[in-house]
């Protein structure tokens, strides 16, 4: 049985504190149930990878954490989702505040049709910061953190659309960092990128995991094995609702899975 090579890392999760706690989550789109009874703890300052065959609700699950599913009128969420012990679906919870704390990087790089600078400054400006020197500092800091500063410091005022795909995606990460989130959600962030750009983003993710809690959805098992600390395997039940089969340290999931379905999936028997 050939299993995927898991990168050995000395610096595992910095702590074991739970950042996000999910209990009994059900997600519906109209009458269709997209997710059923999910229970999962996301550990602080670590990378949790969510893997599974397409259509099993991985992306929908990710969009629960910043309530992007709210944009779909028929979507309905049940169960308990807590960020730092506070329910994010509670009546008093402010979606705008939540999304400041929980940033998101999308599947396709989606910089706004504005300059590099304006893209990164977009979040801080929306949240009331119009101080020019402060913004300059934030933009520089965010771009450095996203490993994009050297490539863009001379073209901050050129259109973001002139950057390459990989650069655009790192710009989107910088844009998220500028808002100073605690959690970063990544929805297949490398699926539209070439291998070299993918590698850069993966390095960046490892780097960011020291400060941020990262949840990444990926269809690429090698990627999950390379970057994540913990892995959650999602699968489709018979009525096409997504379920969580198994979750644990990435090494465990890839070398010693408990569930037959996980084993079949990670060894490439289907999916």
């Amino acid at each position, binding site marked *: 049985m050939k299993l995927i090579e898991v990168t050995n890392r000395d610096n595992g999760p910095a702590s074991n504190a739970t950042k996000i706690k999910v209990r009994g989550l059900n997600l519906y789109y109209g009458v269709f149930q997209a997710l059923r009874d999910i229970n999962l703890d996301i550990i602080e300052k670590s990378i949790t990878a969510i893997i599974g065959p397409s259509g099993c609700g991985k992306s929908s699950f990710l969009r629960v954490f910043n309530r992007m599913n709210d944009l779909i009128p028929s979507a309905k969420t049940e169960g308990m989702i807590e960020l730092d012990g506070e329910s994010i679906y509670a009546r008093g919870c402010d979606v*705008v505040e939540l999304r400041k704390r929980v940033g998101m990087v999308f599947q396709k790089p989606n910089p706004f049709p504005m300059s590099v600078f304006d893209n990164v400054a977009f979040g801080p400006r*929306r*949240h*009331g910061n*119009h101080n020019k020197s402060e913004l300059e500092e934030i933009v520089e800091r965010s771009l450095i953190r996203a490993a994009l500063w050297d490539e863009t410091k001379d073209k901050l005022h050129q259109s973001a659309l002139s950057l390459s795909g990989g650069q655009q995606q790192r710009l989107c990460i910088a844009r998220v960092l500028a808002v100073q989130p605690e959690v970063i959600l990544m929805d297949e962030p490398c699926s539209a990128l070439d291998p070299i750009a993918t590698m850069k983003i993966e390095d960046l993710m490892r780097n960011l995991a020291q400060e941020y809690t990262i949840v990444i959805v990926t269809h690429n098992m090698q990627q999950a094995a390379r970057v994540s600390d913990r892995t959650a395997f999602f699968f489709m039940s018979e009525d096409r609702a997504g379920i969580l089969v198994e979750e644990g340290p990435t090494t465990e999931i890839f070398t010693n899975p408990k569930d037959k379905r996980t084993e079949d999936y990670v060894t490439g028997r289907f999916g």
Partner: protein
Amino acid sequence: MPRISPKTSERLAKILLWGAGFLTVLILAAIVIYVLVNGVSEINWEFLTTPPIGGLSGEGGISTIIVTTVYLILITIFILTPVGIGAAIYLSEYAQDNILTNFIRYAVETLAGVPSIIYGLFGYALFVSALYLGHSLIAGALTLVCLLLPTMIRTTEEALRAVPQEYREASLALGATRWQTIWHVALPAALPGIATAIILSTGRVIEETACLYVTLGGSAAMPRSILSGGRTLALHVYYLAMDTMAFDKAMATAAVLIIIIVIINLFTNWLSQRFRSAYTAMEEGRP
């Protein structure tokens, strides 16, 4: 300057946006209700079936006006439909995508925006004067054809383009000629769109005034041939309001106009909805 918090500006913006929507509804309601309230009481069988007393008298009904309007619609649509559909078929099925086609498209688009009175001037110069047709039904109808052609071509072309390419390929692969494919496959599939275009054109004939004011003449008498002049309902409203100051009859005629327009709008909405649902059914039918 103190900045307004994002929350406050969000709330303020939404109030203003809903205000704009509300005001729009109010404008329409004011026009429609005002005309109907003031006009409908005048409308009765006698009003619809007696001819107006011409000249500066505001008395009488609108029977000859209705007849003229119907004649004008029939003549216009009769000429407009084949030419418009033919040109649209050429553009969507035969023309290659080159500079010439692009220029033609630009011309069609531009002509759709040329004001009615310019078409009126043109119709006056060509049909009324140069071709000696005088102020007549045929001069008015030909002018309307020119006015409506760009929209007719564009709408029909869009309907034809919306027909999936697979249909044409399937038909051609069965050995049908290009024309058979157009006639038996593309046109039937585009029919609801074309029907909408024809009904919309009918509506435009009813609404139009400026270009008819200078080509149709203003006779209130019953038209005897296509060379007689006449008045449509819309023109009649103008003459009653401006020349005769018979505002009660003008309101009544305007109420008839609004009722016709509302019916046409409801009908086209229904038609395009059917068109759309037919398409979604088709899309869903595919794996």
